């Protein structure tokens, strides 16, 4: 199905929230819930997990593959255009023919989602924050939190801390050490640079940098080796989306522990539980969906291959499902 015009917010309802329409999809919220309607069905979900999921989808430019908000609603990235779907990756919805999918230009769906976040996120709620570090997503409309919902994802060109690249974090720049990382060593490495090599002799305290992250479940690019991206992130509570891989992705647990629930990407049937402790390294195959649970705020290195050749390989079915066989 092709795209239809978007409507960015009608008249606010009795709770103060505007409805939004994108193609055949209509989004509404009340004090507690988000209601999504499409030509063949409807869905209701709690406002907090929905807004957290939509926030990641926008911040990550629809990421690699599928961003499932829950078992029904989500997006599928085709890199330049994006499917918004209901029930597409839910076996029972497909059997009942209640599923629905529409394709939109990237900028059009992003603009709509950003408008929803601008209107539906109240001033006390930060969708990127851990549960104990933010106010409530619920209740009548109460202001907005544009600072939180328009955060720019850190994306180093070469390495964080180099001249003309993404800056390091400090108390002074507004990044205090998180309450769960107060015991992390903040000493910087010794760097002795001969004049003229300031752009090349560089190092920084990567764990210290992560200890100052003000967001959860938001991988940011810290170092770039051709198309290989080291994207560390700090995790606490539950990954707000269920990520369906279209390519192999790697996790290296740097501290503490995350438990990953892994399901089949198409059907959602359980396949494995991956328990990762400090020093553990594991691949997520390209035919699964996964959701992580981090009991304590932890440091996770997400390692991605951002090769421009991959979308074509994926579209042609040529991308490998697993990284190595043995």
């Amino acid at each position, binding site marked *: 199905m092709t795209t239809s015009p978007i409507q960015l917010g009608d008249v606010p309802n009795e709770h103060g929230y505007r409805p939004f329409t994108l193609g055949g999809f209509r989004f509404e919220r009340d004090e507690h819930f988000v209601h999504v309607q499409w030509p063949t069905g409807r869905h209701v979900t709690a406002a907090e997990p929905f807004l957290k999921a939509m926030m990641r989808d926008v911040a990550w430019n629809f990421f690699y593959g599928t961003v499932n908000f829950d078992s029904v609603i989500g997006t599928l990235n085709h890199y330049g255009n994006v499917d918004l779907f209901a029930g597409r990756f839910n076996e029972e919805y497909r059997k009942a023919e209640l599923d629905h999918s529409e394709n939109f230009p990237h900028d059009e769906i992003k603009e709509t989602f950003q408008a929803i976040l601008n209107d539906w996120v109240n001033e006390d709620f930060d969708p990127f924050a851990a549960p104990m570090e933010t106010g409530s997503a619920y209740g009548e409309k109460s202001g907005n939190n544009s600072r939180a919902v328009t955060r720019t994802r850190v994306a180093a060109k070469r390495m964080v801390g180099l001249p003309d690249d993404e800056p390091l974090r400090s108390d002074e720049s507004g990044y205090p050490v998180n309450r769960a990382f107060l015991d992390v060593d903040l000493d910087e490495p010794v760097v002795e640079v001969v004049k003229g090599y300031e752009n090349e002799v560089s190092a920084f305290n990567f764990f210290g940098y992560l200890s100052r992250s003000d967001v959860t479940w938001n991988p940011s690019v810290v170092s770039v080796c051709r198309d290989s991206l080291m994207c560390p992130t700090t995790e606490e509570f539950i990954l707000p989306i269920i990520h369906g891989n279209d390519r192999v992705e790697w996790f290296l647990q740097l501290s503490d522990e995350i438990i990953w629930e892994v399901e089949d990407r198409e059907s959602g049937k359980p396949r494995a539980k*991956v*328990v990762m402790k400090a020093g553990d390294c594991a691949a997520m195959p390209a035919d699964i969906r996964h959701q992580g649970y981090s009991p304590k705020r932890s440091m996770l290195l997400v390692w991605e291959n951002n090769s421009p050749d991959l979308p074509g390989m994926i579209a042609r079915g040529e991308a490998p499902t697993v990284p190595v066989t043995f």
Partner: protein
Amino acid sequence: MTKYKTIFAGLDGYEKGGVEVINDDPKNYVFSNIFEVASKAKPWEKVAVAKNQEYVLEVIRAEGTSSWRVTPHDEFAMVVDGEVVIDLLDPEHPLVDPSASGSIALSGEPKGTVMGKVIARRGHLALLPAGRCYRMRAEKPSVVLLQTVSGPDTVERWSEICQKY
């Protein structure tokens, strides 16, 4: 207020998780532990623990002094245990084709200009810049995680390091 303890791991102590299979093959997850890999590696061996087409993350057991190496592209060295000194040198003449993949070991000491050095401990990340030479030193067994491209001496022994059952 809760007093949190952040758990890191190292050669002296690590607790490994694993793949608990429901309906899958654990080999699909290529699951290993970098400290277990380092504990069984020879000094300066470059053992791949993650691979995504030509790209790899290598675990290096740093112990003593490495040979000098030259890299055709940027590499990034994260010290994940111990302390490592990284010497950097700008070679007199180009020593590697910039289109090549992975760093290569050099015989002897290259001629060139000293660029500086980094003393990195656990959690520190250092740039190993493209076209330059580097050497690492570690007084005590330490562990480096290297972000790079698979090269001539990248070691792949997945069957030995990964969970199979």
